[in-house]
């Protein structure tokens, strides 16, 4: 146990400023957005994920968002276990026909006001899986989408920007393509 405490202390705080870096595509408004999240949600923005048939690549990056580097809790954002506790719904995958009903029900279970972030190229358009006997071809075919975050998969930073953009209310409805 002492070893674990030593390790925690020796690593120190790794949480990076939000946003941790400042690429061109990320506007200076992010600070403003973050302030607005804090104002409206009092450090308590609940995020719920539904995997609607992704390849699990997007889930890996959503998991990565929980890495200490992204300091998600510091931004007042947390993943919640039930749609009843959520403000934002993240949806990954092209929406398989077998998940269509579950996605609709999860969306309906979230109390208004609510925002939906369609994650990844699949969530945006169906991606490589397109539209077929098995997939619906994108989240907006099934439920209203506030913001789309393209990428295969989008990086944690982009996901964070998508979440902040959705709640800012005055945003473009799709982030630009992910830079190489």
């Amino acid at each position, binding site marked *: 146990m002492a070893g674990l405490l030593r390790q925690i202390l020796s690593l120190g705080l790794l949480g990076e400023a939000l946003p941790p870096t400042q690429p061109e595509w990320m506007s200076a408004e992010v600070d403003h957005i973050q302030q607005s999240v804090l104002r409206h949600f009092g450090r308590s923005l609940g995020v719920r994920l539904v995997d609607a048939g992704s*390849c699990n690549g997007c889930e890996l990056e959503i998991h990565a968002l929980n890495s200490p580097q992204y300091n998600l809790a510091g931004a007042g954002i947390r993943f919640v276990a039930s749609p009843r506790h959520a403000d934002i719904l993240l949806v990954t995958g092209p929406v398989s026909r*077998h998940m269509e009903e579950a996605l609709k029900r999860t969306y309906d279970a979230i109390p208004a006001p609510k925002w939906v972030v369609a994650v990844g190229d699949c969530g945006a358009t169906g991606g490589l899986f397109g539209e077929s006997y098995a997939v619906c071809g994108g989240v907006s075919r099934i439920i209203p989408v506030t913001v789309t975050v393209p990428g295969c998969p989008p990086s944690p930073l982009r996901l964070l920007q998508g979440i902040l953009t959705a709640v800012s209310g005055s945003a473009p409805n799709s982030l630009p393509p992910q830079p190489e």
Partner: protein
Amino acid sequence: MTRDDDTPEITPLAGAIPARHGIVAVSDLRARSLTVKEQGGRLISLWGSDERATTGGYHLQVALSDSDGLLWLSVPLPSLAYPALEDIFPNAARMQRTLHDLLGLHPEGARDLRPWVRHGAWSAHDFPLRKDFVPPCPAGRLEDYPFVAVTGQGVHEIPVGPVHAGIIEPGHFRFAVVGERVLRLEERLGYTHKGLEKRAEGMDLDTLMRLAGRVSGDSTVAFSWATAMAAESILALKPPPRALWIRALLLERERIAQHLGDLGYLCNDAGLAAGFSQFWILREEWLRTQQQIFGHRLLMDQITVGGVEHDLYPDGAVEMTAELGRVELRVRQLDDMLQEHAGVQDRFLSTGRVKPDMAARFGMIGLAGRASAQAWDLRVQFPSVPYDHCDVRMATQSSGDVAARVRVRFEEIHESVRLLRHFLVRMPHSALQTHCPPGCKGSGAGWVEGWRGEVFVALQLDAGGKVQRWHPVDPSTTNWPLVEQAIMGNIVPDFPLINKSFNLSYSGQDL
């Protein structure tokens, strides 16, 4: 071994792995399967193909693993029926159900004929993998699934999913419990069925490679390599040596990335949040290195047919070598801490046990198999370049519990660190890409030991070099039924821990 020499219709496949392919009569199928089973072999996959345009019927396809390597049997069917193999290989049961859902072939003698990947989006009379399939418009309504009912005094059911509490892929788990103890678990999967195999039909190889990288995002390198290997087998293409070494480097990096993430989540599910943070700090640093050197955090789209996309940039090897030292040290420190932590060990030890005899009966493979004394690792048994140079040490345990699966992950991280050092020092210099000739008709197979276990790909190209049939197999397909076994007698709150200790793919099994 002379059994194949007696049958000239079975011939070796060109390529990186020892594989044989041939046509056998349906009347010989069970006898051949039994022979393989009796000699300690396994069923890798059972699938089918619509060959009506060429031979006038359907082919059952069976991939087996025996002491000589991979044995791929194509079985022309005179009717829509074939003899079930589930009594010989229990992992055939769900494959047979999938085959019925997708191609309408009937396993004679099978006990369970319920649909598996078909939930009702298409009807029981439509078969997507038939070449003349017309998608229903609108899609069908979802149908109820007849779960096996468990009755008795005090028994109740807990339905979980498809939407789970955490960040996890969708699947349904039906627990029958008495108090907190689980009497029985029944899985229902298929929620992420995306029609991958149908989607691949008619694709060119470049697009197929992109699709292959998205069968299961956490195994993108393994599926890409296996698919490239299958295509290279058909095209008689030998990638340059440096390309093969870089592929192995990517595969080992993927293994370490996944093991770090899993160990973090195992700490998390055992209630040690600090452990989660420590492992995910390491994983995030690891992914950022990958972004910097290969341009993709998860290493997607690095492998091409005939080579690889990116070389290491000049300082890349130096950076990765330094990183290996840091990661190795910190993982050892974390390993010591977990071993000393009574609370964590209490959760890990004896939880979710799959005993070796059970594992052998089900043909359990991969990381979870090795934790239950099933000593299968393609890097050891059938090493291709560059593994043939480095004498891979296999990690095995026999207790088959969560602790064993944790132990195997730690040992594999250290072995992969050793392999990566070897690759970085010894990597030969050569081109990265062999010119890819125009496609030609043929069949090829790929077989790669991914982090979760062996990934198998069977590929058939048509005369124009387009995909006629592509069948990717994730080890999860074989290992999922073992999760049902592992939970029995445990308490419901331990299920997330047990499930995470396997960390099987939903997308990879649903396709």
